[in-house]
């Protein structure tokens, strides 16, 4: 069993679907952070069989967590202070996502207009469908 030490101040993303932690690392831009980050892949889980965990030693408010819900809203977000879990954050699907995912429709105005952010809006909460604000192209996943 691999042991990764506790963090003192920061947050832990638990119950990430196995293999999804790198997508989160990328989309939260954790590579640009000057804080300790631990990625644990394929940890054993009673609930999920296998899961990923991310430990990040920085203030959660510096993060745009909207992207997390988009990747997997079942992720558990534990806020850590003095080495203890002091709060858990519920993830909800954001109504709008700006500058995180790109519209892949080559006929969309976002493909040519300078400085236009890619914005997706939640079109169907039940089915978790996001559509481009401009051309209504459906977001079909990260890959």
């Amino acid at each position, binding site marked *: 069993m691999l042991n990764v030490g506790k963090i003192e101040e920061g947050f832990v993303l638990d119950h990430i679907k196995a293999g999804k932690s790198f997508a989160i690392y990328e989309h939260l831009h954790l590579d640009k952070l000057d804080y300790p980050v631990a990625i644990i892949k394929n940890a054993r889980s009673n609930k999920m069989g296998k899961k990923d965990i991310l430990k990040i030693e920085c203030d959660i408010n510096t993060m745009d967590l909207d992207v997390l819900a988009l990747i997997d809203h079942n992720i558990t977000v534990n806020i850590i202070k003095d080495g203890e879990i002091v709060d858990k954050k519920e993830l909800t699907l954001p109504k709008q996502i700006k500058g995180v995912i790109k519209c892949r429709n080559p006929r*969309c105005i976002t493909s040519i207009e300078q400085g236009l952010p890619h914005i997706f809006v939640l079109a169907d909460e039940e089915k978790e469908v996001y559509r481009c604000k401009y051309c209504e192209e459906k977001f079909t996943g990260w890959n």
Partner: protein
Amino acid sequence: MRHLMSPLDFTTEELDRLFDLANDIEKYPAKYAHACDGKILATCFYEPSTRTRLSFESAMTRLGGRVIGFSDAASSSAAKGESVSDTIRIISCYADICAMRHFKEGAPMVAAEKSRIPVINAGDGGHQHPTQTLTDLLTIRSMKGRLSHFTVGLCGDLKFGRTVHSLINALVRYEGIRFLFISPEELRVPDYITDMLKNRGIPFEEVIRLEDVMPQLDLLYMTRVQKERFFNEEDYVRLKDFYILDRYKMSLAREDMLVLHPLPRVNEISVEVDDDPRAAYFKQAQYGVYVRMALILTLLEIQV
């Protein structure tokens, strides 16, 4: 300030007011002849569409206003690389209202976000063409007296036809609508539309042959079946006659059925049908001017 991006931007009550105004314009054109004196419409057409552009120009001219604009991207500053956001900021200084057609989907929405004047989406790629849908609805309401309780046949290319998708989305807001989708397998209505109809409990059927359902229809919306949409020539030759409306198929229809078509037609409606009193497609072009007149007045907030 309001813009028009999608036919669903207006509630059904707002549409009723718009159509009442259009019908009043039809009845008393002289009353509106100077309603837009001193106002300027900019027609910013990044791709050619003679009919839609002329319809807008006719509408503004009949209201006493004037028109400026361009009719393709090559003759606009887009050819020099100017963004839509910059263009509309400039157009806002020159005109009071803008009708924009663009080959990129969502371009009129980008314009609306930066504009100081109302922007009308006059067609954006394969996405929306709201003034066509308003034209279709006004034609139906004017000639039938209502927009509810119809069996609506949509025939031809139901997969790529944006006018078809927009009309379905607009009609589902009214009671008692039933759809019959008449198309070859290859050109069926997309799943997201049939899913939406199932979710809302709106009855529909998908059929292959037009003549099988003609007697059931209150409205028939024809579109063109293009040869290049088929996987092979054999299927095209086998199926194409199913989607050509001729005098024989009209003989199977009800006396009060209406035939609509967004135009231009090529050969999907035989010219022998043109004189049939149920053929509403040329009248539709006339209603297109009235609805654009009503829209210009509404967005400019001009009361007559």
